[in-house]
Every structure is written in structure tokens, then in C-alpha cells.
């Protein structure tokens, strides 16, 4: 959180990360992410190509949802403190879908001379289907 310091001592295993939501993804969101990321696989923006590939329509890049998930971590620890971020893509997000991201701190430990936390991440859609499962590692400042 910009301007707010979260100390390692103040975090407990089991703490929930603040939820992050992106509601009703649009095809424009996919195109915007294509331009931003350079992922121009036509399966994400070209209806004709998507249909020829056996899909009803275009679907979101996994990395668009992953970027939204990353906000759950940066919102909790601040971007500079992120040491690791991992996602596994399980179900695809379609136009109109919500991406709802949650996370939990599962471990506090010391590593590489830093006070660290790690935890689980998940993104689900509005039907509760899991889009992404993942994890994070962060270093936090210490009061000591």
C-alpha cells in the first residue's frame, strides 16, 4: 500500500489479503492488454480465428487475469516488497466474466537475510470457478 508500511511483526499466518475485483471483462480489455503486453495471439481478439479454433468466442489472456491477481499482493505488501509470484491457469475467463482475487498468508519465515511471508492466491469468476491458483513471496520491514 503506497505510503503505508506493513511490518512483518503485524502479519499473521492466516491473514487474508484484501480482495481485488475486475468486473465484467470486455473484449476491449483483451485488446488493451494485447497492446500493453504484446500478446497478439489472435485467439484473444479475433472472433473468426477463435471460432476456427473451436471456441465460441475470444477469451482473456491468462496473463491479464494474472496481472489483476498480482494487485492482491501489491495492495497488501507494496510492489517493492514482492519477491516471488506464481500462477497456474485452470479455467479461462470470457467476455462478461468477473475476476475476483483472494489470497492468504500461509507462512512467516526468514530467508536471504529478510523477514518474509508467503501465501496462496486464487482468482475465481462470478460462478466461483477457479481461473487461477497461485502463490506469492514477499519481504517485509521489521520493527526490530
Amino acid at each position, binding site marked *: 500500500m*503506497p505510503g503505508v508500511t506493513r511490518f512483518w511483526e503485524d502479519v499473521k499466518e492466516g491473514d487474508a489479503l484484501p480482495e481485488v475485483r475486475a468486473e465484467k471483462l470486455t473484449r476491449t480489455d483483451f485488446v488493451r492488454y494485447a497492446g500493453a503486453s504484446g500478446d497478439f495471439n489472435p485467439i484473444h481478439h479475433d472472433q473468426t480465428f477463435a471460432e476456427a479454433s473451436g471456441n465460441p468466442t475470444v477469451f482473456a489472456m491468462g*496473463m491479464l487475469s494474472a496481472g489483476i491477481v498480482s494487485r492482491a499482493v*501489491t495492495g497488501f505488501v507494496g510492489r517493492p516488497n514482492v519477491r516471488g*509470484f506464481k500462477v497456474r491457469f485452470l479455467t479461462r475467463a470470457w467476455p462478461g466474466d468477473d475476476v475476483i482475487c483472494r489470497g492468504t498468508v500461509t507462512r512467516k519465515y526468514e530467508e536471504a537475510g529478510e523477514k518474509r511471508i508467503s501465501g496462496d492466491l486464487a482468482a475465481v469468476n462470478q460462478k466461483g470457478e477457479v481461473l487461477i491458483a497461485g502463490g506469492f513471496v514477499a519481504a517485509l520491514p521489521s520493527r526490530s
Partner: protein
Amino acid sequence: MAIDRSYIGRQGKPVTMRVEWGKIREFARAIKDDDPLYFDEQHARTEAGGVWAPVTFLQTLRFWDDGRGSVRPPFDLKRTLHGEQEYEFFKPVLAGDTLTAVSRIVDLYEKPGKRGGTMTFCVTETDFTNQRGEVVARARQVGIETGQVVKD
């Protein structure tokens, strides 16, 4: 595709990538992130030593790669899925940095698909080194070619 394990260990040409503020802003907007660390240069400098690249920003490496940096087996795009993505960060990645990225295939293997056919998995790692010679990040990607068109 018949699996060709000779791809394992194959390394791409180093790719030079500049981390640009405009691109960071565009990327942050695309992931709907309004963190002032990406948008307010003065704030970012005071709070964090500069404008940080978002967590998944290193995906934009592809803009700097003329094709010789990436190492991938010839997967069929219509049947290709992004399975996993991971980043480790060792040092800050800030606007103004010049990174050199080297990618290599670390594993290639097959598994039977749940809905028939064979799935081929390709694991690629990319190391990013900054202008001071510091390794700042490592990306790890798992790409999957499915035996048939993907259905959920």
C-alpha cells in the same frame, strides 16, 4: 508434434529491453491498477526510489525480441495454452533500466491429456540482468500444446 527433446537446453540470443515509464503506465492501466507508484513519478521516487515495473510487466520483453531471443518448439497456436507463469525478483526493476534477457528451454515432456490425446509441456526460463550486471529477475513459463482443440 512428436516430442523432440533436443530442444532442452536450447538458448535464445540475449535480448536488450528498456524499461520505459510510458509502457509501465500502459501496462498498469491494462491490468486496471491505479497504484501511484506507476503513475506519479514524484511519489514513486520519494516512496520507492523510482517508478517500478508491475509484477507481470516483464512479459513485455516480447516487444524487444526480433524472434531470435525466444526459444519455443513449434507449437500450434490453436492448440497452445499458457499453463503456468512464475517470477522471482532479486533486485528492483525501475523505469529507466536497461535489461538483458536470456531465455532457455529447461524441460520438454509429454503427458496423456484428460480428454484424450497427448499434451506437450515446455518449460522456459528467462534471466533478466540490469545495466549494472545485477540479475534482477527470473521468469519461468510453462507452455502446453494440447492434443486437440482446447475445451474447458
